[in-house]
């Protein structure tokens, strides 16, 4: 049983922002509810009001001027079935196909996943490697937040209290752009997730982005590991993977918990980085 709350169903982003500003911590944005309702059922949080944002129509997927625009309220199911994404971002489609289970994918939204910022989540890690920008909207004004700047800590994002995540913008990868996301877990949620993206031209690797997630409190981009691969030939980069993996492992801020010991997770980050690189080039 849930505690009683009032349902608000605004029809504009400005209205949502106004409600959030007015009610502060007594109100919460509610989309798919696949994370929020669980912690409400647990009694870990209580809200006087839930703000249903599903009437805002933010579930479009489109391509515009070299940018893929994904509405924050797209469900994982809508994303995995998007022909446009299958064509332009197959790595994201594969990720979305493997989120949780079919029922969670049916109701859960990518925006909700990102905003709840549960450590053991997939999309954030890949979006970082894709150089995605997240649109934070107040109605009267909006700003773009780089995915790598979005996750502050476990369950904490850089969204202001009255900002709504409305869209995810991913630069359309060019023909030479390779990317892959791999995850590992044996519990219900992933224990370790690693994403890599890079340009591969004439045998050379450039513009590398590496992100490690799930192991620590928030996904992290690992510039030090990227530097090890940048500017190298494919073979040289392959030989640097072990070292890059070790760096990424440490950078992941792995926490020892039921998902695994710290050193185990750090090791798995390295393994996944190696495999993700190989998957991306093949």
């Amino acid at each position, binding site marked *: *049983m*849930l*505690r*009683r*709350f*009032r*349902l608000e169903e605004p029809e504009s982003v400005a209205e949502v922002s106004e409600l959030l500003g007015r009610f502060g911590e007594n109100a919460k944005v509610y989309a798919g*509810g*696949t994370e929020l*309702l*669980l912690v409400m*059922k647990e009694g870990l949080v209580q809200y006087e009001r*839930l703000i249903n944002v599903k009437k805002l129509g933010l579930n479009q997927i489109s391509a515009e001027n070299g940018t893929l625009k994904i509405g924050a309220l797209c469900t994982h*199911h809508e994303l995995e079935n998007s022909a446009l994404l299958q064509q332009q971002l197959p790595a994201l489609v594969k990720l979305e*196909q493997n989120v*949780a*289970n*079919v*029922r*969670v994918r*049916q*109701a859960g939204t990518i925006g909700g996943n990102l905003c709840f910022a549960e450590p053991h989540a997939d999309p954030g890690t890949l979006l970082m490697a894709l150089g995605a920008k997240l649109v934070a909207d107040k109605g009267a004004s909006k700003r773009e937040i780089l995915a790598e700047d979005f996750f502050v800590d476990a369950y904490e994002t850089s969204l202001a209290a009255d900002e709504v995540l409305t869209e995810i913008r991913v630069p359309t990868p060019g023909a030479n752009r390779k990317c892959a996301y791999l995850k590992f877990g044996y519990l*219900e949620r992933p224990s370790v997730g690693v994403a890599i993206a890079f340009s591969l031209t004439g045998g050379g690797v450039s513009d590398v982005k590496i992100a490690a997630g799930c192991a620590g409190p928030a996904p992290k981009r690992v510039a030090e590991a990227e530097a090890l691969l940048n500017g190298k030939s494919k073979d040289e980069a392959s030989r640097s993977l072990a070292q890059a993996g070790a760096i990424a492992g440490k950078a992941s801020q792995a926490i020892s918990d039921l998902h695994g010991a710290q050193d185990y997770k750090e090791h798995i980050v390295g393994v996944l980085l190696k495999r993700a690189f190989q998957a991306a080039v093949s």
Partner: protein
Amino acid sequence: MATATRRHADTQAIPVSFTLNGRLQEIDVEPHELLLDVVRDRLGLTGAKRSCDVEVCGACTLLVDGRPVSACTTLAFEVRGRSVMTIEGLADNGKLHPLQEAFIEHGGFQCGFCTPGMILASKALLDENPNPSEEELKHFMHGNICRCTGYKKIIESIMAAAKKMRGRP
């Protein structure tokens, strides 16, 4: 007296009009009511079970617009204007659905606790993909857990039902 009236005025009643197993239902729900509780306790359809309560096991699976949802973690008002199917609505005037027949014929259940969810999820699978490979089947059904059968008979049941359903005009 005045306090009681005030408390009633505080209650938010959301009218929910939806089709349940093919029949129109019109009820009022409060925002915090969960679909599983409304279906089981108010509508008396107890096929769906509360088991893990965290969307992991699938014992509470219902079909909303033909798609599987965790009723334990769905707010009841979300089925406004939609069609809901429970296991009780699968048989057609007493005639069992091919999936139900297959589960019986192939031993796809033992205690039966996971079975309503299993069958509804399989229906959603076969509606989407009438000829799934075993891998596709396992991927779709990954979120429905069974403690008794070891899954082999469940897979056989679904595959058999799929074959039968493909053979029908």
